């Protein structure tokens, strides 16, 4: 009966959404009949700035596509320019980028776990996750000088080196962080009530995930072995990377993927620190980029693609970003239909939406 429908404008301003996205929720009782997203609240048009900033300075702008995945964006952009110009960055720089990339994955996943707990009304778990995240941010700040926007990547390498003495101290601090994370993920993965809320909610089948274009943990939660890190860019080839895959396809599986990736990231960081090669962190760059390049890397949220097109001047001719959240929107639309209103926040969050990324 159409007379029994409630239409709820969910967002753009809503406590569950730190970022603006809008959903037109049509619910009956509390069952969602249809949920159509509407975006464009964060669209800035950043890609249009390439022709007024030099490609080297544009790194700082690329970094500000998103405040959470900032490091990956800057490194992907640098990687793209380096690809266009055929620059080989020093090994140490590659290792440092890998380390920071994994740190930013840690901070992003912890942030997500916190927000996810919050969306389930689990305040104390939210605080717990964010408390651990603060120690990750401390590591970031100590090594790069910025908490969430690191500003450390540079075409040709990185701007700052990290002292070896600091790196060796990092290992002990990682132990403590890992212990805390164990307590945290134990709750996420084993708590009875949380399981009740998560298992079987928002199921995305393997096929749907593949053909609707799911990326990152969303795809891996549905049993897809998809991770750009497997291609072995930066130092990932040296650390023996294997993607974390869960088969459930539901909210629990996606949560489990992220929980397990936390420990995987810690492992990678440990490997990178121990194997850190000595040497320069920066290769001087000469000339201007020309040609086309698809630069891909794995963000905490999935595969990000920077398309760069140079025309031999200091400014790029074209810059396009395809972010994991954008391609995770179609799966989101498909899993929202038929869910409970109370599950809408957690289902929206299971794809870990990063609207800032998505809309540039």
């Amino acid at each position, binding site marked *: 009966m159409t007379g029994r429908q409630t239409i709820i404008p969910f967002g753009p301003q809503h406590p569950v959404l730190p970022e603006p996205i809008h959903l037109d929720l049509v619910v009956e009782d509390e069952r969602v009949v249809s949920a159509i997203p509407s975006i464009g609240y964060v669209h800035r048009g950043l890609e249009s700035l390439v022709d007024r900033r030099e490609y080297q300075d544009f790194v700082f702008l690329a970094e500000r596509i998103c405040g959470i995945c900032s490091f990956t964006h800057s490194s992907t952009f640098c990687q793209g320019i380096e690809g266009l110009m055929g620059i080989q960055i020093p090994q140490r720089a590659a290792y440092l980028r890998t380390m920071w990339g994994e740190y930013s994955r840690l901070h992003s996943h912890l942030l997500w776990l916190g927000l996810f707990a919050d969306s389930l009304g689990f305040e*104390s*778990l939210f605080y717990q996750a964010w408390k651990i995240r603060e120690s990750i941010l401390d590591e970031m700040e100590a090594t790069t*000088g910025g908490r969430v926007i690191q500003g450390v990547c540079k075409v040709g390498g990185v701007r700052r080196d990290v002292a070896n003495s600091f790196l060796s101290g990092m290992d002990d601090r990682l132990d403590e962080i890992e212990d805390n994370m164990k*307590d945290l993920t134990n709750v996420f993965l084993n708590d*009875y*009530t949380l399981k009740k809320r998560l298992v079987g909610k928002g199921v995305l089948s393997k096929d749907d995930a593949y053909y609707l274009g799911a990326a990152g943990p969303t795809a891996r939660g549905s049993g897809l072995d998809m991770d750009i890190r497997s291609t072995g860019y930066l130092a990932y080839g040296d650390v023996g990377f294997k993607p974390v895959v869960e088969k459930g396809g539901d909210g629990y599986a996606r949560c489990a993927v992220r929980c397990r990736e936390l420990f995987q990231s810690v492992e990678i960081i440990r490997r990178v620190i121990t194997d850190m090669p000595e040497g320069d962190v920066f290769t001087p760059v000469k000339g201007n980029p020309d040609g086309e390049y698809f630069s891909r890397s794995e963000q905490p949220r999935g595969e990000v693609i920077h398309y760069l097109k140079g025309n031999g001047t200091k400014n790029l001719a074209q810059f396009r970003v395809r972010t994991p959240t954008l391609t995770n929107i179609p799966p989101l639309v498909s899993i929202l239909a038929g869910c409970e209103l109370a599950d809408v926040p957690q289902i929206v969050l299971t794809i870990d939406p990063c609207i800032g990324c998505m809309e540039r």
Partner: protein
Amino acid sequence: MKMFKTILKQFFHTPATTTFPNTPLENFEGTRGHLVFDPSKCTSCMMCMKRCPSQAITVQRAEKIWTLDRFRCVMCGNCVDVCKFDALLMEREYAKSATPTERGVETYEITYVKPERPKKETAE
């Protein structure tokens, strides 16, 4: 239920909360807090203005004026990197907030005096 252990642990530990703002926070070495300008070292080369990604810096070479809009500065430190004369520095302390009346552009008069070029002793 699994949470019980964790919250119990929290309860018997001192809270993680800082005492800020009663005591200022210690920042890490190399934290980019705010930009400091040394008027006595600036040669008005304009590099900082050109390479600032957010156009927070303006240099008027003729008037010898260097201005910074703190409410545009992204603290990326690019200007510090490109400044060959060490006139710019990143301090660790964060920048202070302002009400509309307090808010303004920081203007500095460049006091740099081009040093007398040392006599070319080697020329002799």
